[in-house]
């Protein structure tokens, strides 16, 4: 199909001298909410980072809206893993969200009151308005994740990449984040999310990309997210905990 918003062709990347991604090719349709699912070390984060030029590719090409990354990076929002930054950094929640506007504000210029208001509204949307002036190290893990998401929202991008936004957050935050992701999708944005919980894949995502160093399977969740494909992704050593539930445990390599 030609209307794909992301086209990845034969992408390969290595991480600490190991080739973690090889021959990764897929296309993403606009307005989809895709879960990237795979075992630890499958290259999920590396895939996102390589697509966003945060990690050098070995070969292959990635195009967004038919253009290379550099021309469209302002239309792309990225939510890194919560652990990727130092939360002891002396700043407050509102300030972190305002960082999402730095591209719009322009370099070497100060944020105006309008920008602060925008950032505050994004925090409010994430249910964090009361924590705007809270030092970020005093926020819980779930609250930190909400701040990161608010920062992405304020960017008003067309395309969002999120690296495990649901890792280590409580149930309320998980619901809040998923509501926002569905809102984004409903307003025509395209979202790709690295996800870990196999049980919730069906409820959360309309598309799924099963990844283990290369694309195992990709498509509509209902078509692709089958027991066989999951088994293929997670290796042969799968044990089904309960036959009727899509809940698996795999042995450590």
């Amino acid at each position, binding site marked *: 199909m030609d209307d794909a918003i992301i086209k990845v062709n034969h992408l390969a990347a290595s991480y600490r001298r190991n080739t973690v991604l090889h021959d990764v090719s897929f296309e993403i349709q606009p307005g989809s909410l895709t879960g990237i699912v795979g075992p630890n070390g499958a290259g999920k984060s590396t895939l996102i980072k390589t697509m966003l030029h945060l990690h050098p590719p070995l070969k292959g090409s990635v195009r967004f809206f038919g253009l290379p990354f550099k021309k469209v990076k302002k239309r792309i929002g990225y939510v890194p893993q919560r652990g990727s930054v130092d939360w002891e*950094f*002396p700043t*407050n929640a509102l300030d972190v969200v305002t*960082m999402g506007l730095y591209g719009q*504000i322009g370099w*070497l210029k100060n944020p105006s009151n309008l920008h602060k208001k925008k950032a505050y509204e994004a925090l409010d949307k994430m249910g964090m308005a009361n924590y705007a002036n809270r030092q970020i190290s005093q926020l819980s893990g779930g609250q930190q994740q909400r701040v990161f998401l608010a920062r992405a929202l304020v960017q008003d991008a067309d395309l969002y990449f999120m690296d495990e936004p649901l890792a280590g957050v409580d149930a309320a935050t998980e619901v809040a984040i998923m509501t926002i992701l569905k809102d984004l999708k409903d307003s025509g944005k395209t979202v790709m999310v690295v996800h870990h919980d196999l049980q919730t894949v069906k409820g959360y995502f309309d598309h799924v990309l099963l990844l283990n160093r290369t694309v195992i399977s990709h498509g509509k969740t209902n078509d692709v997210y089958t027991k066989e494909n999951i088994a293929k992704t997670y290796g042969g050593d799968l044990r089904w905990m309960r036959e009727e539930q899509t809940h698996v445990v795999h042995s450590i390599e």
Partner: protein
Amino acid sequence: MWSILLNSNTQWVMVSTMILGVASGLIGCFAYWKRQSLMSDALAHASLPGVIIAFLIFREKNLFILIIGAAISALIGAFFIQWIRSSTRITEDTAMGMILSIFYGLGIMLLTVANRSAGGNQSGLDSFIYGQAASMVRSDVMTMLILALLVIFVVFAGLKEWKIYLFDPEFAKGQGLSLKGMDTLYTAVLVTTIVIGIQAVGVILMAALLIIPPVSSNYWTNSFKTMLLLSAFFGGMAGIGGTIISAFGSGWPTGPFIVIIASGLFVISLVFGKEKGILINYLYFKKDRKRMTYEKKDGILQSRGAK
């Protein structure tokens, strides 16, 4: 004794060490949040051979020439650390330890050569080890002042950019900030701050002026800007205080006194710091415990009342 302080040269030296302290306090905050405090120590030590080589080539004790040599030498050191880390299995701290001691050893060896070579004007090169602010002449002071003011300008012109670069560089890149550009600028201001400080503070203790003020200021505030301002203030105080004390004795080195003042400010911050100080934490803990005890008593009273 006070006449020394009223001497115009001493006053100029004091102004320059104060501005140096301010610049170090600011750049130290960057190094602190980049987790590169030890890196600044390695670079300071690595600058010594450059100073001596520059002197051996030009036979002149002009600070500007010597700090160019120091900067080149420090950058070579930085390059080696980077190279060792990326192309061998040696970890960064080991690489820094190696470069620090090898370059410093080389510097001391060259210093011995310089001291033995003909001509009497090499005396004073020793001051680059422990620092001797009093040995600075007017042109040295001017060189240092101008470069330090330049560093301070670079910090405040791009405050917002520095903040996002230090907090979340990957996100900054997505926002269109050039990480390569920021890395280069960061290295440039770090090396500049180090090399302008080595005559007044010395290569051994220069890193203390970059490390101690930021750590101290972190106890007082939760805002990046306030941390920078406080760190600059602490650095400036240490610079001026150290220079005054060393001016009282003849030939007293400046570096150690600057470090002692900076450490004093650190101890005060550690105990009395408004945000993370030991005292405030203890008081909060006591207050909480008191509240808990009262609640418990209330609970007992209530249950008695119920009976």
